[in-house]
């Protein structure tokens, strides 16, 4: 995003709307720090600029910068040329939301989601690689319908395309499945590497309910030092035909 200095009236309305705090007062007008801007479009859509000074310059749509809007603005579809056959917007996948009809996560497996940059901080993509390269060394394979998968140079090694390393997005999700028996080793390794990332990460775990309605994994997670929030996303089992293994 950019502010046209000729049009800006310095009303100071737009800085409050920026989720990553990258709009500042400059010399005679407000200025967007384009290195920090994630192209989420909130300033353009919602700040109500009285002089229409905010705009998206052509450069924002050119690769690799185009990655920013794709992962930060939910109204932007992933460009076909970069994400062939993805056919979706949004940062994640169907994951557990349709698990009752897809069986993506059967009993005996967990799903894991690591959302970099969330909440409200943003992340450089190089931070993601710190974790993906570690996970592949532990045998993890990433969800190939997640948009992140298209940014890998080598998904088997968890390395990203070098030209995107410095791009910044509002958030991006690392998503994978793991056998139940691997929970402790993966959580312990992640707990260490997440201390080294230069952003925040919202961590989630997908699990089937037991037939008695319990979630025994909560006890295992608490033993590992993780706190499980009292609120969660719950697939109510109303999809048909139901996958009941």
């Amino acid at each position, binding site marked *: 995003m950019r502010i046209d200095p000729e049009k800006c009236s310095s009303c100071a309305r737009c800085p409050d709307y920026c989720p990553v705090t990258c709009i500042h007062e400059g010399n005679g007008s407000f200025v967007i720090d384009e290195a920090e801007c994630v192209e989420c479009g*909130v300033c353009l859509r919602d700040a109500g600029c009285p002089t229409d000074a905010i705009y998206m310059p052509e450069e924002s749509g050119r690769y690799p910068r185009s990655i920013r809007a794709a992962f930060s603005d939910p109204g932007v579809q992933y460009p076909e040329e970069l994400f062939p056959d993805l056919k979706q917007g949004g940062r994640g996948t169907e994951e*557990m939301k349709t698990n009752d009809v897809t069986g993506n996560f059967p009993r005996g497996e967990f799903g894991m989601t690591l959302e970099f940059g969330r909440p409200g901080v943003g992340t450089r993509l190089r931070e993601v690689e710190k974790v993906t390269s570690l996970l592949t060394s532990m045998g993890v394979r990433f969800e190939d319908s997640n948009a992140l998968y298209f940014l890998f140079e080598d998904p088997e090694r968890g390395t990203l395309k070098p030209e995107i390393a410095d791009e910044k997005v509002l958030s991006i999700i690392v998503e994978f499945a793991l056998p139940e028996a691997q929970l402790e080793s993966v959580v312990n390794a992640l707990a260490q590497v997440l201390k080294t990332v230069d952003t925040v990460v919202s961590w989630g775990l997908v699990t089937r309910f037991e037939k008695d309605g319990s979630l025994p994994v909560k006890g295992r997670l608490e033993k590992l030092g993780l706190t499980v929030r009292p609120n969660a996303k719950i697939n109510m089992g*109303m999809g048909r035909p139901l996958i009941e293994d």
Partner: protein
Amino acid sequence: MSHSAHRCGTVSNLQNDYTMYARTSRYVNREGCGPKLRKILEIFLSENPVNFGSSHSGKSFAAGLDPEEYARSLDKAYAVACCFSKPSSVLNVLKRLKEADTGISIVVSGLIEEVQNMADEIGLTPHTALLSLGVHGRKELLPEESVLEITTMCGHGLVATHLVEEVAQKVRKGRLTAEEGAMALAQPCPCGIFNLDRCRELLAEQLERISKEGEE
């Protein structure tokens, strides 16, 4: 996406915060799903949701999305999101969805225990959960919890910390009511899961707490 999974709050102030998401699968039941999504939207709307929408519509109810226009657009959609502040509304919606038996997956985000109680009451068997294991990494970059309770109601992170602080200040100074403040904060979130009622109550609680501290 996991955009309603990581809402910050306490058991007490999450009592009035439930999002419901009807989601088709592109592998199973997306083809021709428009009429079913419209039926689900009709059921959602019958129980006074506080907000609704989806990113494909580009704006939420709070930002002016017209329900009829939205219903017509659902032939090109794959999901519908809605937000409720009363557990009784969620329960009634689930009952009606069970009767309607659309076959579309339904996800409820809210307090685990409360959602399980609802499922028990109407004979549903919850299938899968996405548990939130909190925020890790450089937590010193985060604003205070009272701000996060509001910003995380937009799972895409489009409600800015500074906007919450600015609106809260206006509410404290009496330049906005808590209700007006909640409406202002809901605007950047296009998906319709920003809970206006909960936001209004959180702003009003902040105001009350500051008033009490002033008296002391």
